[in-house]
């Protein structure tokens, strides 16, 4: 068991390092922050000074080593734009993002899972077909299109809700719905197919053959099995709590991490982008770790030291 945890932690660590490395390389290949931040007309001396002060004149390998050395000392660097610690900048934005993504996550779960289960139990009915069509649409329609559609209807035409900003609770409603519907569609589709798969298994027939009522068969025999694959997707949704709202935040001018990311990328604000990516990778990897351990709890076949057949 300890070896299992250690290998998983090591794998998680390597994943994070790879993500950060990738970001590091791509950002440095995609344009010079000095020219972008100071503007194309800045005098060469100013650019040189800027580069020297941020260490951009060093060879890339040296920057890379210094960057990682700093991370291990808890220093995620300064924003090139306003000179504040990148970590502080990002942390300031997290509550705003979570204010959208956490309610959206609950919306996804509350809509997606029951819809998927119900559709699977009533396969082929009008409800099932409706769920499937909605799910395919939720899958196919990009979130900005959905967002714009919602804005058009509820903000522009009906005037019930604001179209952007973060002044009142009302401002959060459209972004949350946009995020929630898309995820709910994917979750419903996934839950439905997991449930259908389980309902076709011989042990479901066995459970019925014992005389258990159908509701009991579904509750005690089908759902625990269908939960196993569904947990993977839920884990992914939890993992994208921070990064999952980039588009929606942009559309609704919501001052969250996603918007910060977009601005930072545009400005080649290296430290901020790297800090966000590190944070996103850590959340994703952590939720994956939790999913792995949940598997063990849900599925005895994966439990450690499985007592093999005699």
């Amino acid at each position, binding site marked *: 068991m300890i070896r299992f945890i250690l290998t998983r932690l090591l794998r998680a660590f390597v994943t994070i390092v790879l993500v950060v490395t990738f970001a590091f390389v791509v950002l440095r290949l995609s344009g010079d922050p000095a020219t972008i931040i100071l503007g194309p007309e800045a005098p060469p001396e100013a650019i040189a000074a800027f580069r020297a002060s941020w260490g951009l004149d060093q060879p890339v390998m040296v920057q890379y080593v210094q960057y990682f050395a700093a991370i291990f000392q808890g220093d995620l660097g300064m924003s090139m734009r306003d000179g504040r610690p990148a970590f502080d900048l990002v942390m300031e934005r997290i509550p705003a993002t979570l204010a959208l993504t956490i309610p959206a996550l609950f919306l996804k779960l509350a809509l997606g899972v029951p819809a998927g289960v119900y559709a699977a139990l009533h396969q082929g009915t009008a409800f099932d077909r409706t769920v499937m069509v909605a799910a395919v649409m939720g899958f196919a329609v990009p979130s900005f299109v959905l967002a714009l559609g919602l804005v058009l209807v509820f903000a522009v035409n009906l005037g019930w809700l604001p179209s952007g900003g973060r002044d009142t609770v009302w401002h959060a409603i459209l972004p949350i719905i946009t995020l929630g519907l898309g995820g709910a569609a994917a979750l419903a589709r996934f839950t439905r197919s997991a449930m259908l798969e389980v309902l076709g298994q011989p042990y479901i027939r066995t459970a019925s053959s014992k005389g258990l009522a*159908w509701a009991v068969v579904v509750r005690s025999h089908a759902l625990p099995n269908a939960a196993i694959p569904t947990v993977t997707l839920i884990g992914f949704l939890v993992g994208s709590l921070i990064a999952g709202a980039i588009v929606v935040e942009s559309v609704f001018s919501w001052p969250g991490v996603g918007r910060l990311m977009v601005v930072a990328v545009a400005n080649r604000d290296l430290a901020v982008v790297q800090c966000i990516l590190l944070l996103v990778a850590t959340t994703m990897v952590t939720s994956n770790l939790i999913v792995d351990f949940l598997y063990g709890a849900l599925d005895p076949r994966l439990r450690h030291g499985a007592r*093999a057949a005699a």
Partner: protein
Amino acid sequence: MKAPLVRIKGLNVAFDGAPAVRGVDLAVHPGEALGLVGESGSGKSVTWLAALRLLPGKAAVQGRVTLDGRDLLSLPTPEMERIRGGRIGIIFQDPSSALNPVLTIRRQISEVLALHRGLSGSAIRAEAKRLLDLVGMPDAEGRLNSYPHEMSGGQNQRVMIAMALAGQPDLLVADEPTTALDVTIQAQILDLLQLIRREMGMALVLISHDLGVVAENCDRVAVMYAGRIVESGPAAALFDAPRHPYARGLIDALPTLEDTRRLAAIPGVVPDPRDMPRGCAFGPRCAHAGPECLLDSPPLRAVAPGRRLACARPDLDLTPARPTPAPHLAEVTS
């Protein structure tokens, strides 16, 4: 003879318009072991799944299945649920996938005890252990906390049998109970089923594609082909002198350990349920088919005490196949 425990009358089952069972009449008497034999697609399993209403909703089921004079096919669902697992138990082919992988053995047996016997608490635990002992499970106490994947196929089938016995049924339907098991384990399980049947005075329906298994374990046998019973009778008499060309063919096609003889293969394949031949379904594969076989599906009629036959030419002389080495090209068939 006593009144039958379960009587199936005129049972028809179709899936999306394709008939799987076509007018089956069958009676199971208290305490008897009835074998139902046939190849894949013969409808032998579907007959009993339909009788217990375990088929998916798209199956169209007609006919009557009576237990104590009540028609199971028209019983309200809660009453049917009292019969399933209570009066009639059923076990399936692949025990390892027929048990729920995420629930302990204790949990899966206890469900039945709580439902049909009204037991609770420590009584359940004691009874579950007693049942595992009864089916010959080594270390019954310890096995209660195991999961199906931790046990062998034979042990899982023992658990299935224990579960089926938990409701103290009058009839146990065993659907290919040993097909997925090794030969020596198959012998153990069949032996166990016989022992339990005698001790509990329970009736047994043994569904199998293996004539040998049915012959050795059943008092009475019904042979099914393409959704119909083509012949039924006492096991010994039927296997000794089958009257239906298909039953004869099945016996001649079965290799034995006694000698090597050329196996008499039945030419052709089982008909497609969507495209049934006219008249007798076996006609196109039958060496004895005559013009009368094209007229109608022959009904199952009594031809001797305890023996019934569905053949338009009931007086055929079906002497055992002689070893006739035919050139293999003559068998262009399947």
